[in-house]
């Protein structure tokens, strides 16, 4: 699908700029040009498609649907899937949390949404396709959704309501089923300009991270020998996954910044499952996220939340290493 782009990058670097093929600089630059253009194309496509889906399933509609319908366990699947569809912005996680609680949606279901939202989103999907291919992407998305479901379900069973901040418990007491939304009927063509603008906004907001990420990745690609990391983090080392995850939890980056670097780690010999688990820990959990959640929950609940998710990310890391 991207052969033409590889040809273009080869021509640009090796012929036009006349940098020797096989040299460290040449390989780094070639990788940078190829990866940047490929990722931008995919980013635009996926963001636009997700924007269309999102325009028809805005978060208010999802909340009201979950609030009004008895779904016999399926609500975890829906909440987690919707978490994947909704564009993630860390500053929205608290309003979302309260909005869900207010609508009388069980805490576990709310958590399912909250877990998947940063893990799976349009930016992560676009970069994943570009870097690891379709098969790995499908596996990543489905495991992100399953992780949200199971994590939410487990957290829901722990009766954690008493560990919410007092004012949130008050909201919980006054929770009521949401009434119907007045939904503006708009044709697809009417929706397009806004979808387009939103997509461009998302791309603009991650562009810098993507380019810096690919830049670092390109340098590593050119200058670190293949198989370099194998000596340190091999598939056989049983502690590699938990260590990578625990190391990744306090760190924060969005998928855009961390994936280009992960890709190079994998090329240089780190098992893909370990790398993905690390990435999940980085984008899904972080100290900034914890401080945001502090507004709605006690430290104890945050600790429980983080431990449960960390545990499941470690498990998925092992699974990825077996499956991929």
């Amino acid at each position, binding site marked *: 699908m991207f052969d033409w782009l590889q040809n273009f990058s080869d021509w640009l670097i090796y012929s036009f700029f006349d940098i020797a093929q096989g040299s460290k600089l040449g390989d780094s630059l070639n990788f940078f040009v190829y990866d940047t253009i490929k990722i931008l194309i995919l980013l635009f496509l996926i963001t636009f498609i997700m924007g269309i889906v999102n325009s028809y399933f805005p978060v208010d509609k999802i909340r009201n649907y979950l609030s009004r319908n008895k779904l016999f366990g399926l609500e975890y699947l829906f909440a987690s899937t919707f978490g994947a569809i909704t564009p993630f912005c860390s*500053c929205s996680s608290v*309003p979302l949390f309260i909005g869900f609680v207010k609508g009388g949606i069980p805490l576990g279901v709310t958590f399912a949404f909250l877990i998947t939202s940063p893990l799976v989103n349009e930016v992560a999907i676009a970069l994943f396709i570009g870097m690891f291919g379709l098969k790995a992407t499908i596996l990543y998305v489905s495991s992100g959704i399953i992780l949200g479901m199971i994590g939410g379900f487990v957290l829901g069973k722990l009766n954690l309501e008493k560990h919410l901040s007092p004012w949130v418990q008050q909201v919980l007491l006054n929770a009521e089923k949401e009434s119907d939304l007045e939904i503006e009927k708009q044709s697809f063509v009417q929706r397009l300009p806004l979808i387009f603008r939103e997509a461009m906004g998302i791309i603009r907001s991650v562009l810098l991270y993507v380019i810096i990420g690919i830049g670092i990745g390109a340098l590593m690609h050119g200058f670190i020998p293949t198989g370099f990391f194998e000596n340190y983090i091999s598939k056989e080392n049983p502690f590699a996954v938990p260590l990578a995850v625990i190391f990744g939890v306090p760190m924060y980056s969005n998928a855009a910044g961390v994936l280009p670097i992960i890709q190079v780690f994998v090329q240089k010999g780190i098992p893909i499952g370990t790398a993905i688990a690390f990435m999940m820990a980085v984008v899904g959990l972080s100290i900034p996220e914890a401080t945001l959640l502090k507004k709605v929950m006690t430290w104890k609940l945050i600790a429980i939340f983080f431990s449960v998710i960390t545990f499941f990310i470690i498990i998925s890391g092992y699974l990825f290493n077996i499956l991929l």
Partner: protein
Amino acid sequence: LKTIKILGTGCAKCKATEQAVRNVIAKNNIDATVEKVEDIQKIMEYNIMSTPALVVDEIVKIKGRVPSESEILEALK
């Protein structure tokens, strides 16, 4: 006199919205007060789930994205 509130916990998008609103007011000589609401409890009273949001005279006009200047002008009419 219009009362404009920008709801947002302080992320980049919220700041962009506030700036855009102030630009529109200045350019069009609109008589309005602009208040940035950052307290999450107060924000939630408006029953929104995505920030930033633009509130004009206590009515939520736009939520979840940074509005363009023409949209803001429209919301202020």
